[in-house]
């Protein structure tokens, strides 16, 4: 469409269209405006207003309750001097790298396997996406049981005869963060698979015909032709998984409780803990704001492309 379709519903055009309705005074546009009020209130007050409010709290010395005595950026100074915060940020980086990497690699491989044209495709897809329907708490509790060194996987493998087998990461401070990635990948890999599979199905079938004629091996077609064509899908998957990582709270609570010690703590848990349990409202608010800035830094290119795509799609 070169020109946007003349829009009968727009306010300016409205007078030109004869409407049979006898009630001329109450125009439908007003109903439309009224209908937007609840959502608009939520957006303005509960999203943006509350972000500003949290930012203001982060500039005060609030502890148990908000006190509006401003101390500048003291809470941020305290936050960045806080060892637990840095452990949490470092863990976010490790967990993010492993979780996103694992989801992308395994999700893409599963999508390719399914895309090779298998029977019972629906069954495999349903199984791979099954963990998605469960909550992070359920996932955390299941994996806590599977990975517990006393009666879980470690014992089961030892009982099979491999007596020196060790898998006690969940109780080791230097390894516990990796258990989060295992459980997280297990839950989210199906989503990545579904997104990649949708992308693979959009690939022009002529590419396959041409490559067969040229006798290129299948793996090379995937590696050198298909994968570069899928870059927007990779981008989307990366953004979606990043959003999940940065909000990760439930999983760490249920799986490790942030422990042993604070060895598997994550920023989202740090924030909730300081706001709800530790009476360090100002510090928690500062952490929340830093977390928000991290999210914005990762998400804004995505939002930009989405909006640009939409504007482009409708034609200028």
């Amino acid at each position, binding site marked *: 469409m070169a020109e946007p379709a003349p*829009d*009968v519903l727009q306010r300016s055009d409205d007078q030109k269209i004869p*409407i*049979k*309705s006898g009630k001329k005074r109450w125009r439908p*546009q007003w109903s*439309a405006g009224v*209908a*937007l009020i*609840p*959502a608009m209130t939520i*957006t303005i007050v509960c*999203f943006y207003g*509350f*972000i500003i*409010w*949290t930012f203001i709290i982060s500039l005060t010395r609030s502890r148990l309750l*908000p006190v509006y005595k401003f101390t500048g950026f003291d809470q941020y100074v305290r936050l960045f001097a806080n060892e637990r915060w840095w452990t949490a940020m470092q863990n976010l980086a490790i967990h993010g790298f492993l979780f996103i990497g694992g989801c992308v690699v395994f999700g893409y491989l*599963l999508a390719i*396997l399914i895309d090779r044209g*298998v029977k019972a495709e629906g069954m495999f*897809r349903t*199984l*791979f*996406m*099954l*963990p*998605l*329907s*469960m*909550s992070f*708490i*359920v996932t955390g*509790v*299941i994996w806590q*049981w*599977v990975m517990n060194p006393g009666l879980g*996987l470690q014992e089961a493998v030892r*009982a099979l005869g491999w007596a020196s087998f060790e898998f006690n990461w969940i109780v080791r401070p230097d390894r516990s963060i990796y258990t989060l990635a295992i459980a997280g990948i*297990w839950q989210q890999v*199906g*989503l990545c698979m*579904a997104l990649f599979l*949708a992308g693979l199905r959009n690939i022009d079938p002529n590419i396959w015909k041409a490559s067969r004629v040229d006798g290129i091996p299948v793996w090379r077609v995937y590696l050198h032709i298909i994968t570069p064509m899928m870059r927007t899908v990779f981008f989307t998957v990366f953004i979606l998984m990043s959003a999940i990582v*940065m*909000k990760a*709270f439930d999983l760490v609570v*249920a799986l490790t*409780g942030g422990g042993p010690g604070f060895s598997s703590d994550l920023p*989202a848990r740090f*924030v909730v803990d300081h*706001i*709800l349990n530790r009476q360090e*409202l100002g510090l928690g608010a500062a952490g*929340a704001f830093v*977390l*928000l800035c991290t*999210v914005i830094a990762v*998400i804004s290119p995505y*939002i930009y492309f989405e909006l640009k795509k939409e504007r482009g799609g409708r034609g200028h």
Partner: protein
Amino acid sequence: MRYNRWALYGLLCLAAIMIMAPVFIMISTSLKSMDEIRNGSIFTLPADPSFAAWSKAWLGDCTQTLGKKCGGLSSSFMTSVQIVIPALILSVGLGAVTGYSLAVWKMKGANVMFAALLVGMFIPPQVTLYPLIIMIRELGIFGSIPGLILVHVIWGVAFTTMMFRNFFKTVPQDLLKAARIDGAGFWALFWHVMLPLSLPILGVAMILQFTYIWNDFLLGLTFGGRSGQPMTVALNNLVGSQFGEKEYNVDMAATMLTALPTLAVYLLSGRLFVRGIAAGAVKG
């Protein structure tokens, strides 16, 4: 070529086994006795399957009551149901009306508002948590089911609006024109034209909102208090706070009970779930 096919199915089956193994372990553990768990492996099938752990998880252990209640999950299950149903209807209804209004009636600033709402989906809930606590407390519904319903509507409306708005954008302009010329106003167009058209997306939004609200933990933990504890919070408390020896079979039965409603919705809804989950993955 034949070997390739075998390898293909082999790898897929291996992946399916690895993904299903934890689910299998959860179910089989929940059917075992504690003796069997202590002396056996997590991979073995229960020798004498029994639902004793399930009934203990559901009803609680009435022989060692600390308070008046036996501490089972049944009351939290009911709490979750009481939260999910109204929150589901309200958030999907509000999203449908808002999405319709934004997509069809194109008022000034509609796109700006939609962008603002879309960005709102990405906001980590932790960032607005404390102000929300104050608001709910001032409204006098903190620690109650109505409070949790309101919070879920607030957090769900961005997602549902996005689903409906993007769908309504695809409705042909000619159809809207025809309806307008026939004299359909705002609500008539919504009820008689747009909503019937949007039934598939309505299904997707319902299924996803059900899953999100049922699976929520942070909001339930923060706003539920003692009386409004949803299932996920109760499960986490049960697993985290048993005295004496941990009863893994009861834990796993409780986990199964928490997972069952969303699992059932997923298995019954099939493709509708898949359609929505990608769109909603960014949600807070």
